[in-house]
């Protein structure tokens, strides 16, 4: 296997990570541990020993675990329906399910409050500032991660396998648990690990939806770094976070060593039309759930953006085009959208290239370094943005890599968080491609790079699309890095939302809702184009 994958592909992600991730991190750690007099082993031990910190660590871990399980429980049944049946509007539903990913937490919080808060629509339930709210919000955000990654893998499974099981007397349920589920395991664990790491380093959801009573390691790092100026403390915690992720991923890759391979099937063939009433109920139930769960909160936002003092009004949208206070920092909606799209597309391109190469690097070294490489590629996902941001300030400060104030830093920062999604969506698929396909291509005269281009790439097209959608979404919704990066004229939609929410006044709130609605709209359109644009895809792939 190894010989059929060119060495060079491993270098791209490694260089990328080395320059934009490890170098800055090393810089900040070095600075924290060796140059600041504040640091001594004692203060480290203080931090580690403090009951509060242990509490935080424990909380961080278990809330992530529960959130992941809840997300899986909600998303897997939907993935089943999506991967099995063919029905109208499926693409649209899938798109809707992914949109929550872009919404700034503060906006989602408002929506959730409207539904599940003290004065919420759902009477009798008040989840405000409870664990329940955190779990729900995490599930809301990550639902589509599990849904997309498993669905894209699921549609590869040959129906023959389950047919064989049913011929051997397995009921549909048993077939699912003893055949389908084990075969799906790579995709499920891949998405679960993403969700876990995401919840593990959750920031906004905890702070905003959980209220002040909850704190994760990530929140603590932010507090230490940005408010207490305790860089060594933040660095220690970041290091802890990194080690945790690494250890987790390491165990995971060890468990993933032996992935069963099977010839992938063109997706369209495995789709069944809805025939029986039961199937009808199942599909309807799934669609209704996704509409309620994902669309409900989002619809609330759109409604808010369109209602002024109890009446339908476009005032908020109109107002967006006026620079009322003549501010130098006014960004027109068109500008915000185009900035967002620019970053989104740049991130998408970068993340796909880096992510796909990373997946190959892992595959190529399956038997040797995979257990190191794979975790390494996941680290950026769980590294505190503040720590990394400060690292970049002190390291990437000279030409040709003066990124401190460069616009390039935004897509690069976004890519750091987005490409693990590409890796995780692509990896289960490429590792299940039978080696004989690559061998056949090689024997037909394809040099390794062409094998890669003509065999692997097309077969993974669908998975790449799934990853690309996430990269794009991630970039559209992210604002931490965009804020951190200084250039006010490069404001994106989430930044605009944030700015509006920074001042009291009904117009501010309304405009924030209007931009949020536009953000959702733009995201949906983006998906539409990404799904259309499948340069490598053949047939059902």
């Amino acid at each position, binding site marked *: 296997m190894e010989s059929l994958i060119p060495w060079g592909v491993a270098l791209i992600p490694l260089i990328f990570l080395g320059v934009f991730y490890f170098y800055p991190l090393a810089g900040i750690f070095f600075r924290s541990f060796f140059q600041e007099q504040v640091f001594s082993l004692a203060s480290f031990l203080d931090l580690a020993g403090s009951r509060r910190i242990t509490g935080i660590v424990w909380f961080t871990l278990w809330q992530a675990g529960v959130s992941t399980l809840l997300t899986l429980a909600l998303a897997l049944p939907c993935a089943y329906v999506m991967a099995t049946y063919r029905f109208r509007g499926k693409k649209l539903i899938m798109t809707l399910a992914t949109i929550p990913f872009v919404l700034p937490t503060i906006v989602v919080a408002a929506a959730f409050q409207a539904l599940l808060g003290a004065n919420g629509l759902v009477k009798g339930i008040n989840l405000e500032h409870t664990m329940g709210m955190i779990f729900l919000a995490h599930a809301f955000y990550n639902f589509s991660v599990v849904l997309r990654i498993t669905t894209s893998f699921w549609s590869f499974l040959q129906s023959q396998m389950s*047919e064989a099981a049913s*011929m*051997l*007397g397995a009921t549909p349920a048993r077939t699912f648990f003893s055949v389908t589920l084990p075969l799906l395991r790579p995709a499920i664990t891949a998405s679960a690990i993403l969700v876990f790491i995401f919840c593990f380093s959750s920031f906004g959801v905890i702070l905003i939806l959980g209220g002040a009573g909850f704190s994760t390691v990530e929140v603590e790092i932010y507090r230490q770094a940005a408010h207490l100026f305790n860089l060594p403390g933040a660095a220690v915690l970041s290091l802890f976070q990194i080690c945790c992720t690494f250890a987790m991923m390491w165990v995971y890759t060890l468990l993933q060593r032996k992935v*069963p391979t*099977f010839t992938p099937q063109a997706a369209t063939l495995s789709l069944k039309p809805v025939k029986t009433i039961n199937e009808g109920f199942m599909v309807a139930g799934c669609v209704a759930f996704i509409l309620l769960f994902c669309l409900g909160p989002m619809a609330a936002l759109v409604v808010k953006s369109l209602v002024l003092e109890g009446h339908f009004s476009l005032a908020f949208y109109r107002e967006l085009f006026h620079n009322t206070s003549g501010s130098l920092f006014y960004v027109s909606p068109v500008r915000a959208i185009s900035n967002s799209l620019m970053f989104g597309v740049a991130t998408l391109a970068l993340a796909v290239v880096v992510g796909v190469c990373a997946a190959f690097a892992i595959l190529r070294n399956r038997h040797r370094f995979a257990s190191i490489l794979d975790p390494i590629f996941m680290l950026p996902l769980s590294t505190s943005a503040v720590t990394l941001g400060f690292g970049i300030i002190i390291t990437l400060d000279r030409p040709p890599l003066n990124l401190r104030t460069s616009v390039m830093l935004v897509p690069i920062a976004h890519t750091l968080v987005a490409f693990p999604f590409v890796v995780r969506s692509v990896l289960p698929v490429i590792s299940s491609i039978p080696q004989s396909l690559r061998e056949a291509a090689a024997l037909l005269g394809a040099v390794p790079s062409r094998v890669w281009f003509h065999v692997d790439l097309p077969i993974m097209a669908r998975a790449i699309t799934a990853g690309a959608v996430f990269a794009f979404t991630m970039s559209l919704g992210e604002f931490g890095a965009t804020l951190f990066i200084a250039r006010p004229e490069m404001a994106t939609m989430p930044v605009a939302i944030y700015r509006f929410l920074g001042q009291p006044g009904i117009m501010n709130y309304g405009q924030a809702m209007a931009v949020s609605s536009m953000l959702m709209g733009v995201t949906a359109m983006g998906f539409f184009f990404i799904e259309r644009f499948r340069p490598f895809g053949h047939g059902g792939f």
Partner: protein
Amino acid sequence: MDEFVLSHICKSMGAYGALTDITLAVHRGERICLLGPSGCGKTTLLRVAAGLEQPDAGDVIFQGGSIMKIPPHRRNFGMMFQDFALFPHRNIFDNIAFGLEMKKEKKAVINRRVTQMLELVNLEDYGHRRVDELSGGERQRVALARTLAPSPDLVMLDEPLGSLDRLLRERLLADLCHILTQTRVTTIFVTHDQNEAFAAADRICIMTQGQVQQIDTPEHLYNHPENLAVADFLGFQNLIAGAVDSDHGCFLTPQGRFVPDAFLPEANACDLLILPWAASPIPEHEWFKRTENRLSGRVLDLFFQGSMTRLVVKTADDQVFAFDIPPRKKLPRQGEAVFLKICSDGLRFLGKDGRLKGNKGS
């Protein structure tokens, strides 16, 4: 009574083929073999029988009742898939044990049965291996074992011995027949190998292009193919156009006169088929003595096939005939002249209705 009946099944397959009005009745304990060219719909028919596909029309009846409404997993039918469909996440043992587990058998029972099946397919020590550590033939054997393990009421085998070597195939075929006969389990199996079909089947169903051409016992089928499609499929290519001479009780062709054993062809018979085993080489002088049932030409090709040699002959008027000759006969070399006498037993006549008539029966 018929144990299992496929009645007037119609089914379109993808955008391309179709099963048209297929009726097939299988008796209890009978072994029926579906034989037909690649792509004729054999697998599809099995899938309909298994309940994996719903036919567009027709009925599937088991032990007197329609089972169209019963889902595959409650039919207790066994099916071995053409591409095996082994579970890649289970080892060999667990693959074979799957059906028994589904029946909630006890651990000990499962162990015993799986071990027994592994022995049957000659893979005693392979239980703990992973599916991708097996060679092609080994996989096939595992698939076979997995199908038979839960003792199904009806067994369907899609090319069960397709990629095995002859020795193993013969052994397995004998064992398979033995087991199937013993348990008297009704079996439908698909093969592309005539010999296998002939050896294992009680009756053979010849299919071409989604249609049943003939259902018959192996010998009857071989000696009395009902129509050209069947003859064609059986590899009978020795067809001569000619005319019946009712007065002399013979058939006149450019190759000479042919006189059948007993049966006189009707006046409208217009083609003669010579079965491939009907020829044997004779010395030139003997040949000249004969006035009928003889052929001569040059050897175009000789295919040595172990227990026989396939002799391809080109006559003076460029017609090509192929015959199977037992190995002990002295055979001319490629390019040399060859003189053949034709056994009157091996003559069949093709009527205007497209049906073949032999000497006896049919």
